């Protein structure tokens, strides 16, 4: 059985989305900017897609939602344009973000740091949440931007966006939130939250890869990230990818209506809780971060004595896809910053397994996953040096930092 539990990495395209996109490859392939009917024939569907996008996040018609290639582009656009527009003139030189942001924000901020920009990376508390007070305390006269995520990709923890939005508004600081992991899982209402900008990515809510968006509140000045033609009202050049826009619009509609969100919270949340409870019955397992106020599909679990990548190997053999907080196989070999942010237990950083569900998971799949997870834990603990009986007369060089 194949059980896909890595939906925070990417999701399958909903077949209804795929159907909507299909005509725009071989039939309605015109350039929307052309004056002929082959091009203009695409307009009604583009307009419909934009309606879904605006409705999905409750944007005002006077606001802009600019189509980008992905949330990474949207995030980079915000950070680098703030640098171009508000920092290079010398009046402001400070950006506030968190330690646990996606690399699309932290790497862009690291880059600007090398250019002389002062960046504050706020830490999360022991529950894995960024506190609004921490943002308030960090804001200075020269703060140009606050950028913090709506929901954390590893733990699913929701950040107090509305409170942070109010603080930024009061202090007159531009506020951006990366909502990539929030859309389709919780209600994202840009007007209620008081954000100036949010980023999102279609493939995280059963839309296609290679398309995302940046919401920009009316009146917010932001230099274009890509100059060229007059597409997107001159804010982002490049021929419109009609199929992707239509697909993202449909995916947004399917993911954000009231029924969909209720299903996500009830059905997906129920399956997540079932999985989590079953794993927690295995001795020496904990959920990382507080279990309240998080997206309904995500759980990050530490299994003592079981290294994350080894666990993934065993799960993968049994058709189960998950993700690990340990980055043992990546280029930099450092543990995930989210895991490190919890700080106190270094072993924890290498035992984290993230399970992220979607509306396409079934109870049968979860039952199967639970069985295979138990088997994997049993096998790997029988090999584990840190979960074994320790003889008296032996020498140890293990560092328990």
């Amino acid at each position, binding site marked *: 059985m194949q059980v896909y539990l890595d939906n925070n990495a990417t999701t399958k395209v909903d077949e209804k989305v795929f159907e909507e996109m299909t005509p725009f490859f071989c039939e309605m392939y015109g350039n929307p900017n052309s004056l002929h009917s082959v091009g203009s024939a695409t307009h009604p569907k583009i307009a419909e897609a934009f309606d879904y996008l605006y409705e999905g996040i409750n944007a005002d018609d006077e606001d802009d939602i600019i189509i980008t290639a992905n949330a990474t582009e949207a995030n980079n656009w915000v950070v680098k344009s703030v640098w171009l527009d508000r920092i290079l003139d010398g009046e402001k030189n400070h950006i506030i973000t968190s330690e646990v942001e996606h690399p699309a924000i932290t790497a862009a901020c690291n880059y600007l740091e090398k250019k002389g920009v002062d960046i504050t990376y706020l830490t999360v508390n022991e529950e894995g949440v960024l506190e609004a007070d921490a943002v308030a305390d960090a804001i200075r006269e020269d703060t140009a931007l606050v950028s913090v995520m709506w929901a954390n990709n590893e733990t699913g923890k929701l950040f107090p966006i509305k409170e942070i939005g109010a603080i930024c508004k009061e202090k007159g600081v531009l506020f951006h939130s990366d909502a990539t992991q929030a859309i389709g899982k919780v209600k994202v209402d840009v007007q209620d939250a008081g954000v100036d900008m949010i980023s999102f990515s279609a493939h995280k809510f059963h839309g296609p890869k290679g398309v995302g968006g940046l919401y920009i509140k009316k009146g917010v000045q932001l230099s274009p990230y890509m100059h060229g033609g007059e597409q997107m009202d001159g804010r982002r050049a490049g021929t419109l990818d009609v199929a992707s826009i239509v697909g993202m619009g449909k995916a947004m509609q399917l993911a954000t209506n009231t029924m969909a969100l209720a299903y996500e919270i009830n059905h997906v949340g129920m399956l997540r809780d079932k999985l989590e409870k079953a794993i927690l019955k295995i001795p020496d397992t904990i959920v990382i971060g507080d279990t309240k106020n998080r997206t309904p599909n995500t759980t990050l679990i530490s299994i003592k*004595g079981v*290294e994350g*990548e*080894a666990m993934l*190997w065993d799960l*993968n*053999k049994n058709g189960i896809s998950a993700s690990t907080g*340990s980055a*043992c*196989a*990546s*280029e*930099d*070999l*450092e*543990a995930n910053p989210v895991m490190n942010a919890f700080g106190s237990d*270094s*072993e924890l*950083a*290498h035992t984290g397994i993230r399970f992220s569900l979607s509306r396409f998971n079934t109870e049968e799949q979860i039952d199967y996953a639970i069985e295979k997870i138990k088997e994997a834990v049993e096998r790997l603990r*029988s*090999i*584990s*040096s*840190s*979960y*074994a*009986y320790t*003889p008296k*007369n*032996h*020498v*140890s*060089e*293990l*560092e*328990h*930092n």
Partner: protein
Amino acid sequence: MAKASLVGGSIWDEYSNIVVDRMNNPKHQGHITEEEAEAMNATLIVADFGAESCGDAVRLYWAVEKDTDKIVGSKFKSFGCGTAIASSDIMTELCMGKTVDEAVKITNIDVEKAMRDTPDTPAVPPQKMHCSVMAYDVIKKAAATYKGVDAESFEEEFIICECARVTQDTLIDVIKINDLKTIEEIIDFTKAGGFCKSCIKPGGHEAKDIYLEDILKDTREEMERERLTAMANAPKEDKADFASMSMVQKTRAIDAVVEEYVRPMLIMDGGDMELVDIKEENGNFDVYIKYLGACSTCSTGSTGTLYAIESTLKQNLDDRIRVITL
């Protein structure tokens, strides 16, 4: 590598069949008890190596036959990824039947080669090579415990890249001999830094005392010092070389001529001079000087004396030198 790097892919696809087999079914996992060792007329040695903080740790159990120093029992436990489990399993197997002195010669390279399906195809992707290093270190630890010595005593040279087992001395030699300027060149020439990349700069899998980028920088600086020293100690430049000298070298050359030929002449009359500046102007070298003492009020300072100084410099250094007084 560029195209392959752009496409990417699962590192698991790059594991050999032996690695996969040992990950799934390690043959030597487990432990040896005191009683079991005693039954083999052996001493039980248990050694740990690694750090859970960096994600990998291994525990090695040896039963060492008391009369022969031969390893007659070898088991392991591991906290680590699949590669760490597989390489620990192979390492444990390689120890079996060897004496402690023979076992300590097993390196991570031996472990990696033993996991290859074919001699020329690496068993694991480059970034996983570090997982086999730990296996080597735990053998040293176990051997040191058995012999009652410091584990460092088995390491004669200072290893910088543990994946490729390249020493600091080797790196310095290769950089100097081949005039290497970049980390990429070092990787090409020595393979150091080409695997887990921890040894290149801080921020990798584990902290090091010294990194490849430090060695490259220090060695390049040392090479530059050696070059300048050689130049300084070389025979006097002939006139044709004055133009190609750096400004510092020109200053030194002029000072040397002044010291040898000009200053003694001026001092005899109660005067002196100092070099103020050198400027390259329209293909000429304008040497600005300031007279000191009696020379500063001498009537021939702008004619005869000036001509003598200029001629001396031209004769010894370059015909294009012009001397200007301030």
